[in-house]
């Protein structure tokens, strides 16, 4: 089992024919993802050959051919796609997500970094109304190891296992997956570091709670906003599985954006300390370093 993404998921890539789109489509294919099409109105009707040799996980299928459609609608009609991964540049992101939602796709994963806030507000609202789940923007996407990979998470860090992971940060996700590679993961979701994101820590906690194969959830947060505090309340009221947390940004100065657009302490709000305290107050163990966080998880799972 897994959350949001399984081996049945049929994935379209919006912006597949760009450099990033090509690079990561190839990796997604090698990880076993059913990439059923790309979308680019200017290249509709073409088919792109991917050489998968040299990528781990590619198995005996050393190549794949992926058709390009003019619109998401055409892609869905031809392939039954239910997931879209978006690599288009920031200026075109709003149109891409809106198009995918209008075409009725269930899940849109927005990798694009640098999306204007007003555009994000508009497309998130539109997608919500259409019943489309958005992950991101400015995120690494999500992976269900051994089944499917929608985004840019390296697929060869670890395999399937009992841990669910939700994180604002890409590299911290990879770091924790690596440190816990002996156990493996049901799904790992990078929700993104922007102030306006589609899928929250809470959405993932809810899904992991319902997923029978997830035994424990790792929750990674960082400074800015109060998503972790709200997640803590949710855990208190709704989550029965053990949750282990990690928060980055204790040393971040007030008023400075730390890399991610959403990672900023404003006045006294959004501090790492407040997030840690909120999580600990509801019984979540919070590691002081990624390695210590992995140790806390290990202690739980080997008990």
């Amino acid at each position, binding site marked *: 089992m897994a959350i949001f993404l399984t081996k049945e998921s049929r994935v379209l890539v919006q912006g597949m024919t760009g450099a990033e789109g090509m690079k990561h489509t190839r*990796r997604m294919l090698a990880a076993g993802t059913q990439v059923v099409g790309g979308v680019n109105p200017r290249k509709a009707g073409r088919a792109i050959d991917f050489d998968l040799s040299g990528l781990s996980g590619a198995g005996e299928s050393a190549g794949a051919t992926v058709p390009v459609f003019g619109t998401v609608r055409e892609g869905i009609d031809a392939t039954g796609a239910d997931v879209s991964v978006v690599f288009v540049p*920031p*200026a075109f992101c709003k149109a891409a997500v809106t198009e995918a939602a209008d075409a009725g796709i269930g899940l849109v994963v927005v990798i694009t970094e*640098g999306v*204007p*806030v*007003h555009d*994000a*507000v*508009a497309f*998130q*609202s539109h997608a919500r109304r259409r019943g489309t789940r958005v992950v991101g923007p400015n995120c690494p996407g999500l992976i269900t190891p051994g089944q499917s990979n929608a985004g*840019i*998470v*390296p697929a*060869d*860090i670890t395999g399937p296992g009992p841990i669910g992971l939700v*994180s*604002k*940060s*890409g*590299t*911290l996700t*990879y*770091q924790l997956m*690596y440190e816990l590679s002996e156990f493996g993961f049901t799904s790992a979701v990078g929700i993104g*570091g922007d*102030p*306006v*994101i*589609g899928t929250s820590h809470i959405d993932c906690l809810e899904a992991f709670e319902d997923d029978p194969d997830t035994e424990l959830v790792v929750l990674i947060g*960082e*400074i800015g*906003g*109060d*998503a972790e505090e*709200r997640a803590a309340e949710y855990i208190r009221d709704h989550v029965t599985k053990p949750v282990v947390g*990690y928060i*980055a*940004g*204790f*040393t*971040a*100065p007030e*008023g*400075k*954006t*730390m*890399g*991610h*657009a*959403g*990672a900023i302490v404003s*006045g006294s709000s959004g501090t*790492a300390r407040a997030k840690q305290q909120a999580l600990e107050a509801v019984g979540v163990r919070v590691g*002081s*370093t*990624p*390695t*210590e966080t992995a140790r806390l998880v290990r202690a739980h799972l080997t008990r």
Partner: protein
Amino acid sequence: MDLYEHQARELFDEYGVSVPEAEVAGTSKEARLIAERFGGPVVVKAQVKTGGRGKAGGVKLAAGPEAAELTARQILGMDIKGHTVRQVMLARPVDIAEEYYVSYVLDRATGGFLAIASAAGGMDIEEVAAERPEAVARVPVDPDRGVTAAEASRIAAAAGLPAEVGPVLERLWAVLVKEDAVLVEVNPLVRTTDGSVVALDGKVTLDDNARFRQSRWGEGDTVRDSELERTAAAKGLNYVKLDGRVGVIGNGAGLVMSTLDVVAGCGARPANFLDIGGGASAQVMADGLSVILSDPGVESVFVNVFGGITACDAVAEGIVQALGAVRLTKPLVVRLDGNSATRGREILEAAGHPLVEQVPTMDGAARRAAELALTG
């Protein structure tokens, strides 16, 4: 990017929001000339991108040109919460009958904007909200409809503000949307004794991600607190200056923030945040190292890379090339882990630079970098 008050005032004026007559001066002489033109008393206001100017003595009433010159001389060069005052704005005073608070802020929890309004203006709104939550109206704005005339009246009414505030709320919403702002705040918005509604102060924060379609303010208006931040920005680096002794370079914002924390946990303070991102090319590594090594506070440098998509051997090659271009003056502790870490470590080992030391774990490497900084 935050705008200065005088820039916010200019925007408000352009969108039809009444603002006081005002001009900006960079010297006390200019301040005097402006006050002479205005005639009568003027308010002299420090132009800095931080709050609490009044309490810091950065806002003063001057009776006439001579007093304006004197006051400007006092305020110019003043340090307000680490911001040096380089300009003052001189404004014609208005006769205030009532003071209000209005703003549009991004609400992360709902992924939309929130209108905040209160009849208790001129004060710290967070304090008002904490002491008298009922005095502050918070109205979510529908992202599709925005703030229409009807919606603006509803917001004004919710806060107990007079109907004349409605059109101002509508125009401020236009500022927010058309200028790609993520915050528009007016505190105080006043009703004058002659019944007009005037924005006496203004704070506007623009969305950095929207720069590609908003060219008006340019790159030059961004405040960089230090020379190092300016240099780093010019090289396109994602760098924030801190005040410790361990320079930090890493890949990915989350991992770099985490690295700073782990260094601090080892008893040393980090000197900076620097995220070199996914690619981690030799050029970016060289630029990063040169900025960090020119920080006089730095005693050691910690390069913390987790190879995800980027392979560690490529990162190691980048470090070796960078060390050919930049003279290393402080010890460099490198931790490479993840994709192709073994090959990456071998490459660094083979290069055999006397000041480069490898530690395989993040916690261990942070400890070592802290130790070197404290003894160095």
